[in-house]
């Protein structure tokens, strides 16, 4: 499984956990953003375009490869946390 599809699964779990109105809205916006015509429609609705941007951003920038290129290594942060907890007997 590629990192991209893992990330897609994570985003889908996030959307699935949201309350119903937001869930439906996010799925519609994500679908619109995937299509050229949908993107063009969104450009005429700035507030919806911003929401669509938020959803797409969450998926894209949570990809470890993308985040690492921006100086953020989440895996290293987690590993350091685990090591500290083990070494110091933290919960």
């Amino acid at each position, binding site marked *: 499984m590629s990192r991209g599809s893992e990330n897609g699964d994570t985003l889908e779990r*996030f959307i699935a956990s*949201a*309350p119903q109105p937001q869930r439906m809205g996010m799925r519609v916006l994500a679908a619109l953003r995937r299509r050229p015509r949908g993107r063009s429609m969104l450009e005429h609705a700035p507030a919806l375009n911003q929401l669509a*941007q938020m959803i797409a951003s969450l998926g894209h920038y949570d990809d470890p490869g993308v985040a690492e290129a*921006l100086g953020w290594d989440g895996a290293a942060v987690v590993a*350091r946390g685990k090591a500290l907890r083990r070494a110091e007997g933290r919960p």
Partner: protein
Amino acid sequence: MSGARTERVEADVCVVGAGAGGAVAAAELAEGGSNVVLVEEGHWHDPDSFTASPTEMLARLYREAGQTMTVGAPPILLPLGRGLGGTTLVNSGTCFRTPPRVLERWEREFGLELDEQGLRAFFERVEQALSVSEVTPQLAGGNAAVARRGAEALGWSHGYLSRNARGCVGSGVCAFGCPTSAKQHTGITYVPRAERAGARIVTGAWVERVLLRSGAGGSKGRTARTGRGTASSTSPPRRAALERAIGVSARMASGARLEVRAPTVIVAAGTIHTPLLLARSGIGAGSGQLGRNLSLHPATAVFARMADTVDMAKGVPQSFYVDEFAREGVIFETVAGPPAYAAMSLPLTGARHAEAMADYRRLAQCGVMVSDSSRGSIYSVGGRALIRYDLADADVERFRIGLARVGELFEAAGAREVYLPLPEGVSPGKTRRRDLKLMAFHPLGSARADARPSKGVVDGDLRAHGTRGVYVADGSVVPSSLGVNPQMTIMALATRLAFALAGRDISATGHVRVAA
């Protein structure tokens, strides 16, 4: 009930909710010798399962993946934690005592005898338990340094925030599960203390109602209306003065049922869900205030692109404040997070968004939080919470001030570009209600304390008016906006309640003050 197995347990006190109020009350009562059962809807989240991924952790640690929204103008995102620790599991750990001017207002307007002197020992006890101390400049990181530079250039009052953290290394993901367990949330502090003192902790249990017995004898077979109405109106009280708590009934995630028999029940399900539970139980409706008076501390955030590297997620995300405009109801607190978090909140679209994110390491962010005069209501719709909240004109004006001033702060710090969360072409001074993109983290007041039964749901001792044996210990009792992060206020009030119920004297505990 459909043949489901019912487990029955007995206790002196049943506490509903393991967040800032419930966990504290449970631990202090158990340590005081009470037989306590703590019932929590969520679960224990093992730090080994934390991944620092915002997308993943929002879905796991937050109620509704952090997507709870208010209905109103404008809609406001209201993320709420769920699990042992409640919202303390996912907050930034910022600690403020209740401002003295707020306590004075409570005495004047709500008849609450909660002065600074009387609460001091309770605050000190909580601060000691949670290792509260001020963030150092080194740990605060580059994002705080930007805000500090701006505040110093402008001569604005500012400082580093105090937090409940021990051994923090600045992982930058407080809101997504602290990977080092440095943040002293109640799930790893007060809950274990309660357990060590003999309390029984039940997770995955949703409390349906507080069980009451009328003076005439026998449990009440009351049926709450489920139609739309404020929490107050869903179940009018009958013979309220004669009723007293005998426990709670809950539904377990497994489908089994749980009945806790206890003469004292402390409801601490949080500001959004406490009024719904009280209403389902027919408690607290006498004043007409249940589910009303909701304040939120609505907030927004401004980004800036700096000349030098900031690396906002390296350091404590919320570590620095500017309180120059606190008297006007506006406070600034730095906020930060990993790229996915920043990208989600950056107020740009398309190519501009991508270009700014490509320069993520130079982005800085600062939040604007408003001490709101707006008030909302919580309704029960089909058993779910519907939160209605419209931003009042006075609070729109506070955002105008806040956005303009944070823009100045970043410019004084040397920002190359400032990204305000406003539609293109709208300046802070011309901001309308619908232009604002808001979040809120501090719901308060939906079961407010007031000494008068006609004005509040609980009295100054957090005892439900009109019902014996029922107390409330969460943000819902806080009767007004605080202007600062509320977890310490909630915890100090819960400690005070626990000491009063156990007949303990705070001055006899020998706690020592922890230096900041």
